[in-house]
Protein backbone atom coordinates (compact mmCIF):
# COMPACT_ATOMS: atom_id res chain seq x y z
CA UNK A 1 0.00 0.00 0.00
CA UNK A 2 1.34 3.44 -0.86
CA UNK A 3 1.21 6.33 1.56
CA UNK A 4 -1.53 7.85 -0.50
CA UNK A 5 -3.62 4.69 -0.25
CA UNK A 6 -3.10 4.70 3.48
CA UNK A 7 -4.19 8.33 3.83
CA UNK A 8 -7.22 7.69 1.68
CA UNK A 9 -8.18 4.65 3.73
CA UNK A 10 -7.82 6.55 6.98
CA UNK A 11 -9.82 9.45 5.61
CA UNK A 12 -12.66 7.14 4.65
CA UNK A 13 -12.64 5.49 8.06
CA UNK A 14 -12.56 8.88 9.77
CA UNK A 15 -15.49 10.00 7.71
CA UNK A 16 -17.38 6.92 8.84
CA UNK A 17 -16.52 7.54 12.50
CA UNK A 18 -17.52 11.21 12.26
CA UNK A 19 -20.83 10.17 10.77
CA UNK A 20 -21.33 7.70 13.60
CA UNK A 21 -20.53 10.39 16.20
CA UNK A 22 -23.01 12.77 14.60
CA UNK A 23 -25.78 10.15 14.64
CA UNK A 24 -25.17 9.57 18.34
CA UNK A 25 -25.03 13.26 19.24
CA UNK A 26 -28.25 13.77 17.29
CA UNK A 27 -29.90 10.83 19.08
CA UNK A 28 -30.58 9.13 15.74
CA UNK A 29 -30.05 5.82 17.48
CA UNK A 30 -31.93 3.55 15.11
CA UNK A 31 -29.83 4.78 12.20
CA UNK A 32 -26.80 4.22 14.41
CA UNK A 33 -27.75 0.59 14.99
CA UNK A 34 -28.11 0.23 11.21
CA UNK A 35 -24.37 0.79 10.94
CA UNK A 36 -23.84 -2.62 12.60
CA UNK A 37 -23.62 -6.02 10.94
CA UNK A 38 -26.14 -8.63 12.08
CA UNK A 39 -23.49 -10.65 13.90
CA UNK A 40 -21.98 -7.60 15.58
CA UNK A 41 -21.13 -7.08 19.21
CA UNK A 42 -20.89 -3.96 21.32
CA UNK A 43 -18.84 -4.30 24.49
CA UNK A 44 -17.99 -1.88 27.30
CA UNK A 45 -15.67 -3.49 29.89
CA UNK A 46 -15.73 -2.59 33.58
CA UNK A 47 -13.51 0.32 34.52
CA UNK A 48 -11.36 -1.83 36.84
CA UNK A 49 -10.77 -4.47 34.16
CA UNK A 50 -10.27 -2.76 30.80
CA UNK A 51 -9.08 -6.02 29.26
CA UNK A 52 -12.22 -7.80 30.53
CA UNK A 53 -13.65 -10.60 28.44
CA UNK A 54 -17.47 -10.63 28.44
CA UNK A 55 -17.58 -14.44 28.22
CA UNK A 56 -15.75 -14.68 31.51
CA UNK A 57 -15.70 -11.38 33.37
CA UNK A 58 -18.19 -8.79 34.56
CA UNK A 59 -18.47 -5.96 32.04
CA UNK A 60 -20.88 -3.02 31.75
CA UNK A 61 -22.30 -3.88 28.35
CA UNK A 62 -22.15 -6.90 26.06
CA UNK A 63 -24.82 -6.51 23.37
CA UNK A 64 -25.57 -8.62 20.36
CA UNK A 65 -27.65 -6.99 17.64
CA UNK A 66 -30.94 -7.93 19.32
CA UNK A 67 -30.07 -6.28 22.59
CA UNK A 68 -28.43 -3.37 20.80
CA UNK A 69 -31.70 -2.67 18.98
CA UNK A 70 -33.53 -3.00 22.28
CA UNK A 71 -31.04 -0.60 23.85
CA UNK A 72 -31.69 2.00 21.16
CA UNK A 73 -35.45 1.54 21.50
CA UNK A 74 -35.18 1.84 25.28
CA UNK A 75 -33.13 5.03 25.06
CA UNK A 76 -35.71 6.49 22.69
CA UNK A 77 -38.52 5.65 25.09
CA UNK A 78 -39.89 8.28 27.41
CA UNK A 79 -39.61 5.67 30.17
CA UNK A 80 -35.84 5.63 29.93
CA UNK A 81 -35.73 7.93 32.92
CA UNK A 82 -31.99 8.55 33.10
CA UNK A 83 -32.21 10.03 29.62
CA UNK A 84 -35.57 11.74 29.86
CA UNK A 85 -35.13 14.57 29.33
CA UNK A 86 -32.22 13.62 27.12
CA UNK A 87 -28.74 14.70 27.94
CA UNK A 88 -26.78 16.87 25.54
CA UNK A 89 -23.66 15.20 24.27
CA UNK A 90 -20.75 16.24 22.09
CA UNK A 91 -18.28 13.73 20.77
CA UNK A 92 -14.69 14.25 19.68
CA UNK A 93 -13.02 11.48 17.73
CA UNK A 94 -9.30 11.59 17.07
CA UNK A 95 -6.00 9.68 16.83
CA UNK A 96 -7.58 7.27 14.39
CA UNK A 97 -5.42 4.27 13.53
CA UNK A 98 -6.39 1.84 10.80
CA UNK A 99 -4.94 -1.52 9.94
CA UNK A 100 -6.10 -3.96 7.37
CA UNK A 101 -6.51 -7.49 8.77
CA UNK A 102 -5.63 -10.66 6.87
CA UNK A 103 -9.26 -11.38 6.10
CA UNK A 104 -9.74 -7.97 4.51
CA UNK A 105 -11.50 -6.29 7.44
CA UNK A 106 -10.33 -3.11 9.08
CA UNK A 107 -9.05 -3.02 12.61
CA UNK A 108 -9.57 0.53 13.82
CA UNK A 109 -8.96 2.33 17.03
CA UNK A 110 -9.79 5.89 17.95
CA UNK A 111 -9.52 8.11 20.98
CA UNK A 112 -12.92 9.36 21.99
CA UNK A 113 -14.08 12.12 24.29
CA UNK A 114 -17.79 12.49 24.96
CA UNK A 115 -19.08 15.36 27.05
CA UNK A 116 -22.46 14.72 28.60
CA UNK A 117 -24.50 17.56 30.10
CA UNK A 118 -27.65 17.08 32.10
CA UNK A 119 -29.32 18.25 35.32
CA UNK A 120 -26.76 20.96 35.86
CA UNK A 121 -23.85 18.54 35.63
CA UNK A 122 -21.31 18.00 32.92
CA UNK A 123 -18.66 15.35 32.83
CA UNK A 124 -16.68 13.60 30.14
CA UNK A 125 -16.53 9.96 29.19
CA UNK A 126 -12.98 9.45 27.96
CA UNK A 127 -11.49 6.39 26.38
CA UNK A 128 -10.61 4.50 23.29
CA UNK A 129 -12.91 2.62 20.97
CA UNK A 130 -11.70 -0.41 19.06
CA UNK A 131 -13.63 -1.43 15.99
CA UNK A 132 -13.63 -4.19 13.47
CA UNK A 133 -15.12 -2.66 10.35
CA UNK A 134 -16.24 -4.75 7.41
CA UNK A 135 -16.54 -3.56 3.83
CA UNK A 136 -20.06 -3.88 2.54
CA UNK A 137 -20.32 -2.71 -1.06
CA UNK A 138 -19.02 0.84 -1.04
CA UNK A 139 -19.83 1.27 2.63
CA UNK A 140 -18.51 0.09 5.98
CA UNK A 141 -20.27 -1.90 8.70
CA UNK A 142 -19.38 -2.32 12.34
CA UNK A 143 -18.73 -5.96 13.14
CA UNK A 144 -17.31 -5.27 16.59
CA UNK A 145 -17.17 -2.20 18.77
CA UNK A 146 -15.36 -2.25 22.08
CA UNK A 147 -15.44 0.99 24.03
CA UNK A 148 -12.86 1.08 26.81
CA UNK A 149 -13.24 3.83 29.38
CA UNK A 150 -10.17 5.46 30.93
CA UNK A 151 -12.22 6.52 33.94
CA UNK A 152 -11.32 4.74 37.18
CA UNK A 153 -15.01 4.30 37.95
CA UNK A 154 -18.35 5.83 37.01
CA UNK A 155 -18.52 8.11 40.00
CA UNK A 156 -18.94 11.23 37.90
CA UNK A 157 -21.74 9.68 35.89
CA UNK A 158 -23.62 7.10 37.93
CA UNK A 159 -24.30 5.05 34.82
CA UNK A 160 -23.44 4.47 31.18
CA UNK A 161 -26.82 5.82 30.18
CA UNK A 162 -25.72 7.11 26.79
CA UNK A 163 -23.87 5.23 24.10
CA UNK A 164 -20.14 5.49 24.62
Amino acid sequence: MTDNDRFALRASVEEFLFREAALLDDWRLEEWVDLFADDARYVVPSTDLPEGDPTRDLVFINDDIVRLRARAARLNSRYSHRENPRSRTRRFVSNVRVEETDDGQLSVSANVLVYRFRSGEGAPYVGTIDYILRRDGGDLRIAYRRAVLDLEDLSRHGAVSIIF
Partner: protein
Amino acid sequence: MDIQDLIIDDRDRGIFRVHRSCMTSFDLFQRERELIFNRCWIYLGHESEVENPGDYRRRTVAGRPLFFIRSKDGRVRVFLNSCPHRGAMVCRRGAGNAKTLQCFYHAWTFSTSGELIGVPGREAYGPRFKRSEHGLKEPPRVESYRGFYFVSFNPKVEDLVTYLAGARDYLDLVVDQAEEGMRVISGSNKYAISANWKLLAENSLDGYHLIPTHRTYVDYMSGLGTDDSGDTLASRPPGAGRALGNGHCVSENISRNGRPIARWHPVFGEEAKPRIARVRRRLVKKYGEERAYRMADTSRNLLIYPNLLIMDFVAISIRYIEPLAPDRMDVTAWHLVPREESGAALATRLDSYLTFLGPGGFATPDDVEVLESCQTGFRASGNAWSDISRGMLKADPGTADELQMRGFWRQWHANMQGLSQANAQDGQPGGGER
Protein backbone atom coordinates in the same frame (compact mmCIF):
# COMPACT_ATOMS: atom_id res chain seq x y z
CA MET B 1 -35.74 17.42 66.05
CA ASP B 2 -35.42 14.61 68.59
CA ILE B 3 -34.09 11.34 67.21
CA GLN B 4 -37.11 9.48 68.49
CA ASP B 5 -39.44 11.70 66.48
CA LEU B 6 -37.72 11.05 63.16
CA ILE B 7 -39.98 8.10 62.40
CA ILE B 8 -43.69 7.84 63.02
CA ASP B 9 -44.55 4.18 63.41
CA ASP B 10 -48.20 3.74 64.34
CA ARG B 11 -48.83 0.03 63.99
CA ASP B 12 -52.48 0.21 65.00
CA ARG B 13 -53.46 2.78 62.42
CA GLY B 14 -51.01 1.71 59.73
CA ILE B 15 -49.02 4.92 59.59
CA PHE B 16 -45.31 4.82 58.85
CA ARG B 17 -43.42 7.99 58.01
CA VAL B 18 -39.77 8.85 57.82
CA HIS B 19 -38.70 12.43 58.28
CA ARG B 20 -36.64 13.49 55.28
CA SER B 21 -33.93 15.02 57.41
CA CYS B 22 -32.84 11.38 57.85
CA MET B 23 -31.54 11.68 54.29
CA THR B 24 -30.18 15.20 54.41
CA SER B 25 -28.78 16.00 57.85
CA PHE B 26 -25.04 15.99 58.30
CA ASP B 27 -25.42 15.49 62.06
CA LEU B 28 -27.46 12.35 61.50
CA PHE B 29 -24.93 11.15 58.95
CA GLN B 30 -22.17 11.42 61.55
CA ARG B 31 -24.33 9.77 64.14
CA GLU B 32 -24.90 6.85 61.73
CA ARG B 33 -21.14 6.44 61.41
CA GLU B 34 -20.84 6.18 65.15
CA LEU B 35 -23.92 4.19 66.09
CA ILE B 36 -24.34 1.98 63.02
CA PHE B 37 -21.20 1.68 60.92
CA ASN B 38 -18.83 1.55 63.89
CA ARG B 39 -21.00 -0.98 65.72
CA CYS B 40 -22.43 -3.45 63.20
CA TRP B 41 -20.76 -6.07 61.03
CA ILE B 42 -19.89 -4.52 57.68
CA TYR B 43 -19.20 -6.48 54.51
CA LEU B 44 -15.64 -6.50 53.24
CA GLY B 45 -15.32 -9.05 50.44
CA HIS B 46 -15.57 -12.63 49.30
CA GLU B 47 -12.96 -15.29 49.93
CA SER B 48 -12.75 -16.11 46.21
CA GLU B 49 -11.40 -12.63 45.50
CA VAL B 50 -8.13 -13.70 47.08
CA GLU B 51 -7.84 -17.23 45.81
CA ASN B 52 -4.07 -17.78 46.09
CA PRO B 53 -1.53 -17.02 48.80
CA GLY B 54 -0.38 -13.42 48.39
CA ASP B 55 -3.53 -12.29 46.54
CA TYR B 56 -4.82 -9.04 47.95
CA ARG B 57 -7.62 -6.52 47.42
CA ARG B 58 -7.95 -3.00 48.65
CA ARG B 59 -11.31 -1.74 49.93
CA THR B 60 -12.85 1.26 51.61
CA VAL B 61 -15.24 0.03 54.28
CA ALA B 62 -17.36 2.57 56.13
CA GLY B 63 -14.84 5.26 55.29
CA ARG B 64 -11.79 3.28 56.37
CA PRO B 65 -9.08 2.18 53.97
CA LEU B 66 -8.51 -1.56 54.46
CA PHE B 67 -7.10 -4.43 52.50
CA PHE B 68 -7.41 -8.17 52.72
CA ILE B 69 -4.85 -10.69 51.69
CA ARG B 70 -4.50 -14.45 51.70
CA SER B 71 -1.40 -15.09 53.77
CA LYS B 72 1.09 -17.88 53.13
CA ASP B 73 -0.68 -20.15 55.61
CA GLY B 74 -3.86 -19.87 53.50
CA ARG B 75 -5.82 -17.69 55.93
CA VAL B 76 -7.59 -14.54 54.81
CA ARG B 77 -6.28 -11.59 56.82
CA VAL B 78 -7.64 -8.10 56.96
CA PHE B 79 -5.49 -5.06 57.73
CA LEU B 80 -5.94 -1.37 58.17
CA ASN B 81 -4.30 0.17 55.12
CA SER B 82 -2.07 2.51 57.05
CA CYS B 83 1.55 1.92 57.88
CA PRO B 84 2.16 1.43 61.62
CA HIS B 85 5.27 3.60 61.19
CA ARG B 86 3.80 6.92 60.09
CA GLY B 87 0.59 6.14 58.33
CA ALA B 88 1.22 5.84 54.59
CA MET B 89 -0.96 3.42 52.66
CA VAL B 90 0.83 0.10 52.45
CA CYS B 91 -1.40 -1.40 49.78
CA ARG B 92 -1.53 1.00 46.86
CA ARG B 93 -3.14 -1.04 44.09
CA GLY B 94 -6.72 -2.16 43.86
CA ALA B 95 -5.66 -5.78 43.58
CA GLY B 96 -2.58 -7.89 43.04
CA ASN B 97 -0.31 -10.52 44.47
CA ALA B 98 2.57 -9.94 46.85
CA LYS B 99 5.12 -12.09 48.64
CA THR B 100 5.76 -9.33 51.14
CA LEU B 101 4.35 -5.84 51.54
CA GLN B 102 6.66 -2.89 51.56
CA CYS B 103 5.64 0.61 52.55
CA PHE B 104 7.02 3.06 50.00
CA TYR B 105 7.70 5.85 52.49
CA HIS B 106 10.56 4.45 54.59
CA ALA B 107 10.50 0.92 53.20
CA TRP B 108 9.33 -1.01 56.24
CA THR B 109 8.45 -4.49 55.08
CA PHE B 110 5.65 -6.74 56.30
CA SER B 111 4.86 -10.40 55.78
CA THR B 112 1.50 -11.43 54.31
CA SER B 113 0.38 -12.16 57.85
CA GLY B 114 1.23 -8.64 58.95
CA GLU B 115 4.47 -9.05 60.91
CA LEU B 116 7.08 -6.37 60.52
CA ILE B 117 9.99 -8.23 58.95
CA GLY B 118 12.21 -5.46 57.64
CA VAL B 119 13.26 -2.05 58.99
CA PRO B 120 16.02 -0.25 57.09
CA GLY B 121 18.68 0.95 59.55
CA ARG B 122 17.18 -1.09 62.36
CA GLU B 123 20.23 -0.44 64.60
CA ALA B 124 19.40 3.28 64.82
CA TYR B 125 16.37 2.45 66.98
CA GLY B 126 16.90 1.99 70.72
CA PRO B 127 16.64 -1.28 72.61
CA ARG B 128 12.98 -0.63 73.50
CA PHE B 129 11.96 -0.82 69.84
CA LYS B 130 10.34 -4.19 69.24
CA ARG B 131 9.40 -5.25 65.75
CA SER B 132 6.56 -7.32 67.19
CA GLU B 133 4.85 -4.11 68.34
CA HIS B 134 4.81 -2.57 64.89
CA GLY B 135 3.00 -5.11 62.76
CA LEU B 136 0.08 -4.20 60.50
CA LYS B 137 -3.05 -3.51 62.53
CA GLU B 138 -6.24 -5.49 62.07
CA PRO B 139 -9.82 -4.31 62.57
CA PRO B 140 -11.10 -5.33 66.02
CA ARG B 141 -13.21 -8.17 64.60
CA VAL B 142 -13.13 -10.18 61.38
CA GLU B 143 -15.42 -13.14 60.70
CA SER B 144 -16.79 -14.91 57.67
CA TYR B 145 -19.91 -16.84 56.83
CA ARG B 146 -19.86 -19.18 53.84
CA GLY B 147 -17.18 -17.21 52.07
CA PHE B 148 -18.49 -13.72 52.85
CA TYR B 149 -16.04 -11.74 55.00
CA PHE B 150 -17.23 -9.05 57.35
CA VAL B 151 -15.37 -6.71 59.68
CA SER B 152 -16.51 -4.85 62.74
CA PHE B 153 -14.93 -1.92 64.50
CA ASN B 154 -16.86 -2.84 67.61
CA PRO B 155 -14.82 -5.29 69.72
CA LYS B 156 -17.95 -6.27 71.65
CA VAL B 157 -20.15 -7.05 68.65
CA GLU B 158 -22.00 -10.38 68.79
CA ASP B 159 -20.59 -13.17 66.60
CA LEU B 160 -21.42 -12.89 62.90
CA VAL B 161 -23.79 -15.87 62.71
CA THR B 162 -25.89 -14.51 65.57
CA TYR B 163 -25.84 -11.08 63.94
CA LEU B 164 -27.09 -12.49 60.62
CA ALA B 165 -30.24 -13.80 62.37
CA GLY B 166 -32.90 -14.76 59.81
CA ALA B 167 -30.72 -13.59 56.91
CA ARG B 168 -28.54 -16.63 57.37
CA ASP B 169 -31.06 -19.02 55.84
CA TYR B 170 -31.40 -16.74 52.82
CA LEU B 171 -27.66 -16.62 52.33
CA ASP B 172 -27.68 -20.42 52.48
CA LEU B 173 -30.37 -20.48 49.79
CA VAL B 174 -28.03 -18.49 47.56
CA VAL B 175 -24.80 -20.34 48.27
CA ASP B 176 -26.37 -23.83 48.21
CA GLN B 177 -27.37 -23.36 44.57
CA ALA B 178 -23.77 -24.06 43.63
CA GLU B 179 -22.44 -27.58 43.59
CA GLU B 180 -18.83 -26.58 44.14
CA GLY B 181 -19.26 -23.31 45.99
CA MET B 182 -19.50 -19.76 44.73
CA ARG B 183 -16.90 -17.38 43.37
CA VAL B 184 -16.82 -13.72 42.47
CA ILE B 185 -15.74 -13.27 38.86
CA SER B 186 -13.27 -10.59 37.79
CA GLY B 187 -14.48 -7.10 37.05
CA SER B 188 -16.67 -4.93 39.22
CA ASN B 189 -19.18 -2.26 38.42
CA LYS B 190 -18.36 0.86 40.36
CA TYR B 191 -20.58 3.89 40.23
CA ALA B 192 -21.84 6.63 42.51
CA ILE B 193 -25.21 8.13 43.21
CA SER B 194 -25.86 11.62 44.50
CA ALA B 195 -28.36 10.47 47.06
CA ASN B 196 -28.48 9.21 50.63
CA TRP B 197 -27.30 5.61 51.00
CA LYS B 198 -30.52 4.50 52.70
CA LEU B 199 -32.47 5.31 49.56
CA LEU B 200 -30.61 2.57 47.70
CA ALA B 201 -31.10 0.11 50.57
CA GLU B 202 -34.81 0.87 50.34
CA ASN B 203 -34.97 0.88 46.54
CA SER B 204 -33.23 -2.49 46.33
CA LEU B 205 -36.09 -4.04 48.33
CA ASP B 206 -38.92 -2.04 46.77
CA GLY B 207 -41.25 -4.16 44.66
CA TYR B 208 -43.72 -1.30 44.23
CA HIS B 209 -41.50 0.66 41.84
CA LEU B 210 -40.77 -2.16 39.42
CA ILE B 211 -43.44 -1.48 36.81
CA PRO B 212 -43.36 2.33 36.66
CA THR B 213 -39.60 2.79 37.03
CA HIS B 214 -38.45 -0.24 35.06
CA ARG B 215 -41.11 -0.34 32.42
CA THR B 216 -38.58 -0.49 29.57
CA TYR B 217 -36.98 -3.56 31.12
CA VAL B 218 -40.30 -5.26 31.81
CA ASP B 219 -41.43 -4.59 28.23
CA TYR B 220 -38.16 -5.89 26.82
CA MET B 221 -38.38 -9.12 28.79
CA SER B 222 -42.03 -9.76 28.05
CA GLY B 223 -41.28 -9.06 24.38
CA LEU B 224 -38.92 -12.02 24.49
CA GLY B 225 -41.68 -14.30 25.76
CA THR B 226 -42.17 -16.33 28.91
CA ASP B 227 -42.30 -20.02 29.49
CA ASP B 228 -45.28 -21.21 31.50
CA SER B 229 -45.31 -24.74 30.08
CA GLY B 230 -45.74 -27.27 32.85
CA ASP B 231 -45.68 -24.36 35.22
CA THR B 232 -46.59 -25.06 38.80
CA LEU B 233 -46.06 -21.53 39.97
CA ALA B 234 -49.78 -20.65 39.78
CA SER B 235 -50.45 -22.76 42.86
CA ARG B 236 -47.68 -21.09 44.81
CA PRO B 237 -48.17 -18.24 47.21
CA PRO B 238 -47.12 -14.92 45.72
CA GLY B 239 -43.94 -13.21 46.84
CA ALA B 240 -43.46 -11.77 50.28
CA GLY B 241 -41.59 -9.01 52.02
CA ARG B 242 -40.03 -9.99 55.31
CA ALA B 243 -38.10 -8.45 58.15
CA LEU B 244 -35.51 -10.99 59.29
CA GLY B 245 -34.29 -9.42 62.52
CA ASN B 246 -31.35 -7.12 63.26
CA GLY B 247 -32.41 -4.91 60.35
CA HIS B 248 -31.92 -7.61 57.71
CA CYS B 249 -34.78 -7.83 55.26
CA VAL B 250 -35.78 -9.67 52.14
CA SER B 251 -38.12 -9.26 49.25
CA GLU B 252 -38.83 -12.75 47.96
CA ASN B 253 -40.50 -13.23 44.61
CA ILE B 254 -41.72 -15.89 42.26
CA SER B 255 -39.44 -15.52 39.28
CA ARG B 256 -41.08 -15.77 35.87
CA ASN B 257 -38.17 -14.10 34.16
CA GLY B 258 -36.00 -17.15 34.40
CA ARG B 259 -33.17 -17.97 36.74
CA PRO B 260 -29.83 -19.01 35.30
CA ILE B 261 -29.47 -21.70 37.95
CA ALA B 262 -32.51 -23.80 37.21
CA ARG B 263 -35.48 -22.00 35.72
CA TRP B 264 -35.49 -21.76 31.96
CA HIS B 265 -36.55 -18.67 30.02
CA PRO B 266 -36.65 -18.19 26.22
CA VAL B 267 -33.87 -15.63 26.52
CA PHE B 268 -31.49 -18.45 27.54
CA GLY B 269 -32.08 -20.32 24.25
CA GLU B 270 -33.33 -23.87 23.57
CA GLU B 271 -29.88 -25.34 23.99
CA ALA B 272 -29.83 -24.37 27.66
CA LYS B 273 -32.87 -26.51 28.49
CA PRO B 274 -31.22 -29.91 29.16
CA ARG B 275 -28.53 -28.38 31.36
CA ILE B 276 -31.01 -26.39 33.39
CA ALA B 277 -33.18 -29.51 33.84
CA ARG B 278 -30.13 -31.43 35.02
CA VAL B 279 -29.23 -28.83 37.62
CA ARG B 280 -32.80 -28.80 38.80
CA ARG B 281 -32.76 -32.58 39.32
CA ARG B 282 -29.56 -32.23 41.30
CA LEU B 283 -31.09 -29.58 43.55
CA VAL B 284 -34.24 -31.64 44.14
CA LYS B 285 -32.19 -34.71 44.95
CA LYS B 286 -29.96 -32.91 47.37
CA TYR B 287 -32.38 -30.50 49.03
CA GLY B 288 -35.88 -31.89 48.36
CA GLU B 289 -38.69 -30.41 46.24
CA GLU B 290 -39.51 -27.49 48.46
CA ARG B 291 -36.06 -26.07 48.96
CA ALA B 292 -35.14 -26.76 45.33
CA TYR B 293 -38.25 -24.81 44.33
CA ARG B 294 -37.11 -21.87 46.42
CA MET B 295 -33.64 -21.95 44.88
CA ALA B 296 -34.81 -22.40 41.31
CA ASP B 297 -38.12 -20.60 41.01
CA THR B 298 -37.98 -17.84 43.56
CA SER B 299 -35.67 -14.88 43.66
CA ARG B 300 -34.63 -12.77 46.59
CA ASN B 301 -33.33 -9.30 47.16
CA LEU B 302 -31.65 -9.64 50.50
CA LEU B 303 -30.43 -6.75 52.60
CA ILE B 304 -27.76 -7.58 55.14
CA TYR B 305 -28.06 -4.61 57.44
CA PRO B 306 -26.87 -1.98 57.06
CA ASN B 307 -25.31 -1.68 53.61
CA LEU B 308 -24.97 -4.98 51.75
CA LEU B 309 -27.39 -6.41 49.23
CA ILE B 310 -27.43 -9.84 47.71
CA MET B 311 -29.57 -9.54 44.61
CA ASP B 312 -30.40 -13.09 43.58
CA PHE B 313 -32.78 -12.84 40.66
CA VAL B 314 -31.62 -12.70 36.99
CA ALA B 315 -28.17 -13.59 38.31
CA ILE B 316 -26.50 -13.01 41.67
CA SER B 317 -25.12 -9.59 42.36
CA ILE B 318 -23.31 -8.53 45.50
CA ARG B 319 -24.02 -4.83 45.91
CA TYR B 320 -22.11 -2.86 48.49
CA ILE B 321 -23.09 0.68 49.44
CA GLU B 322 -20.47 3.04 50.84
CA PRO B 323 -21.97 6.23 52.27
CA LEU B 324 -19.84 9.27 51.44
CA ALA B 325 -21.98 12.18 52.58
CA PRO B 326 -25.65 12.67 53.43
CA ASP B 327 -26.36 13.12 49.73
CA ARG B 328 -23.74 10.88 48.16
CA MET B 329 -22.81 7.19 48.02
CA ASP B 330 -20.45 4.92 46.17
CA VAL B 331 -21.82 1.64 44.91
CA THR B 332 -19.82 -1.42 43.93
CA ALA B 333 -21.36 -4.51 42.40
CA TRP B 334 -19.74 -7.90 41.90
CA HIS B 335 -21.08 -10.95 40.15
CA LEU B 336 -21.25 -14.17 42.15
CA VAL B 337 -21.36 -17.39 40.12
CA PRO B 338 -21.30 -21.12 40.89
CA ARG B 339 -17.76 -22.39 40.56
CA GLU B 340 -18.80 -25.34 38.43
CA GLU B 341 -20.25 -23.12 35.71
CA SER B 342 -18.18 -22.34 32.64
CA GLY B 343 -18.67 -22.09 28.90
CA ALA B 344 -22.30 -21.82 27.79
CA ALA B 345 -23.73 -21.95 31.32
CA LEU B 346 -21.56 -19.08 32.46
CA ALA B 347 -22.25 -17.10 29.27
CA THR B 348 -26.00 -17.43 29.85
CA ARG B 349 -25.62 -16.17 33.39
CA LEU B 350 -23.37 -13.26 32.42
CA ASP B 351 -25.84 -12.24 29.77
CA SER B 352 -28.77 -12.47 32.13
CA TYR B 353 -26.97 -10.27 34.65
CA LEU B 354 -26.29 -7.48 32.18
CA THR B 355 -29.83 -7.13 30.93
CA PHE B 356 -31.14 -5.80 34.20
CA LEU B 357 -28.21 -5.11 36.42
CA GLY B 358 -25.30 -2.75 36.33
CA PRO B 359 -24.88 0.85 35.29
CA GLY B 360 -25.03 -0.20 31.64
CA GLY B 361 -28.10 -2.43 32.11
CA PHE B 362 -31.72 -1.73 31.23
CA ALA B 363 -32.81 -0.95 34.77
CA THR B 364 -30.06 0.24 37.11
CA PRO B 365 -29.57 3.63 35.35
CA ASP B 366 -33.20 4.42 36.06
CA ASP B 367 -32.75 3.60 39.74
CA VAL B 368 -29.80 5.98 39.84
CA GLU B 369 -31.97 8.65 38.26
CA VAL B 370 -34.88 8.14 40.60
CA LEU B 371 -32.77 8.25 43.77
CA GLU B 372 -31.06 11.46 42.68
CA SER B 373 -34.45 12.86 41.86
CA CYS B 374 -35.68 12.10 45.40
CA GLN B 375 -32.60 13.64 46.95
CA THR B 376 -33.08 16.85 44.96
CA GLY B 377 -36.77 16.82 45.84
CA PHE B 378 -35.91 16.70 49.55
CA ARG B 379 -34.61 20.25 49.24
CA ALA B 380 -38.10 21.51 48.54
CA SER B 381 -39.11 21.52 52.18
CA GLY B 382 -37.26 21.50 55.46
CA ASN B 383 -40.08 19.59 57.07
CA ALA B 384 -41.50 16.80 54.98
CA TRP B 385 -42.10 13.10 55.48
CA SER B 386 -41.76 10.07 53.25
CA ASP B 387 -44.52 7.48 53.44
CA ILE B 388 -43.55 3.83 53.79
CA SER B 389 -46.81 2.41 55.07
CA ARG B 390 -47.89 0.25 52.14
CA GLY B 391 -49.40 -3.04 53.31
CA MET B 392 -48.89 -2.20 56.95
CA LEU B 393 -52.27 -3.52 58.06
CA LYS B 394 -52.09 -6.66 55.90
CA ALA B 395 -51.57 -10.10 57.42
CA ASP B 396 -49.19 -11.22 54.64
CA PRO B 397 -47.46 -8.26 53.06
CA GLY B 398 -46.27 -8.90 49.52
CA THR B 399 -43.18 -7.63 47.74
CA ALA B 400 -44.98 -4.49 46.59
CA ASP B 401 -45.77 -3.79 50.22
CA GLU B 402 -43.17 -2.28 52.40
CA LEU B 403 -42.67 -4.39 55.50
CA GLN B 404 -39.14 -5.21 54.33
CA MET B 405 -38.35 -1.49 54.18
CA ARG B 406 -39.97 -0.78 57.53
CA GLY B 407 -37.85 -3.55 59.04
CA PHE B 408 -34.76 -1.73 57.85
CA TRP B 409 -35.97 1.63 59.12
CA ARG B 410 -37.04 0.27 62.49
CA GLN B 411 -33.58 -1.12 63.09
CA TRP B 412 -32.01 2.10 61.91
CA HIS B 413 -34.22 4.10 64.27
CA ALA B 414 -33.42 1.84 67.21
CA ASN B 415 -29.68 2.02 66.50
CA MET B 416 -29.79 5.79 66.19
CA GLN B 417 -31.28 5.91 69.68
CA GLY B 418 -28.47 3.75 70.98
CA LEU B 419 -30.63 0.61 71.13
CA SER B 420 -29.32 -2.57 69.60
CA GLN B 421 -32.58 -4.05 68.40
CA ALA B 422 -35.97 -3.05 67.14
CA ASN B 423 -39.23 -4.90 66.97
CA ALA B 424 -39.16 -5.11 63.21
CA GLN B 425 -42.58 -6.58 62.51
CA ASP B 426 -45.83 -4.81 61.75
CA GLY B 427 -48.96 -5.21 63.78
CA GLN B 428 -47.46 -6.40 67.01
CA PRO B 429 -49.33 -5.00 69.92
CA GLY B 430 -47.38 -2.58 71.99
CA GLY B 431 -45.08 -1.85 69.04
CA GLY B 432 -41.99 0.18 69.62
CA GLU B 433 -38.62 -1.08 70.62
CA ARG B 434 -38.07 -4.01 72.88
